[in-house]
């Protein structure tokens, strides 16, 4: 039977994973970042925690991550923690689209989503979304989490030349 969680439990778990201390370890500077993430994911796999958290490195950051993963408990709990981290990393990965969209405020653009292609003039860009005004005047708010591609639209008359 699949494990069931209350919404409050999941929220608490995400908050725990996303708190600044751990995030700064995962997303901070230097070469600690990839190793921390790799160690954490390795510990969160189906392998026993003792095997995964053996002192392969004296690095304090990776040691902290391993300790946190070991305390996560069952494999399902660990996979939830990993899911939370990947979720946080996924949120961060939308930033390139935000920057692209900001560069194109006032321009006509084509945004390919997992639903269809949306075309319009960029009027506003927030953290993780862009607001467009379509040719007919409708407002569209595009979620960058489900955006696949972004391109400035070339006006038809320019393209014909």
């Amino acid at each position, binding site marked *: 039977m699949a494990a069931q969680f209350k*919404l409050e439990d999941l929220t608490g778990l995400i908050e725990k994973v996303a708190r600044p201390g751990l995030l700064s370890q995962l997303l901070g500077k230097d070469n600690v970042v990839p190793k921390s993430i790799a160690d954490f994911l390795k510990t969160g796999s189906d392998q026993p925690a003792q095997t995964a958290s053996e002192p392969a490195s004296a690095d304090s950051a990776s040691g902290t991550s391993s300790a946190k993963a070991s305390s996560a408990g069952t494999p399902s709990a660990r996979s939830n923690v990993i899911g939370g981290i990947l979720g946080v990393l996924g949120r961060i990965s939308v930033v390139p689209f935000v920057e692209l969209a900001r560069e194109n405020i006032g321009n006509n653009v084509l945004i390919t*989503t*997992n*639903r*269809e292609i*949306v075309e319009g003039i960029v009027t506003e860009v*927030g*953290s*993780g*979304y862009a*607001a467009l005004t*379509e040719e*007919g*005047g*409708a*407002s*569209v*708010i*595009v*979620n*960058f*989490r*489900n955006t696949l591609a972004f391109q400035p639209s070339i006006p038809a008359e320019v393209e014909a030349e």
Partner: protein
Amino acid sequence: MSFSKKIAAYVGQSIQVETAVETFTGELVSADDTFTVIKRDGAEDTRVTILTDAISYVRKSL
């Protein structure tokens, strides 16, 4: 401003919510980082709760 807060500005208005597999049209009831709730057109008291992260885009017609 986040995507959910931007959507929440349309509470009480008729919108079109597009996901990868379905389109939901109706009055926006609420929107937060977790769920977006709309009351579908033509269905009395039928509320649909959509995972906000699963929304591709929201369209508000004139």
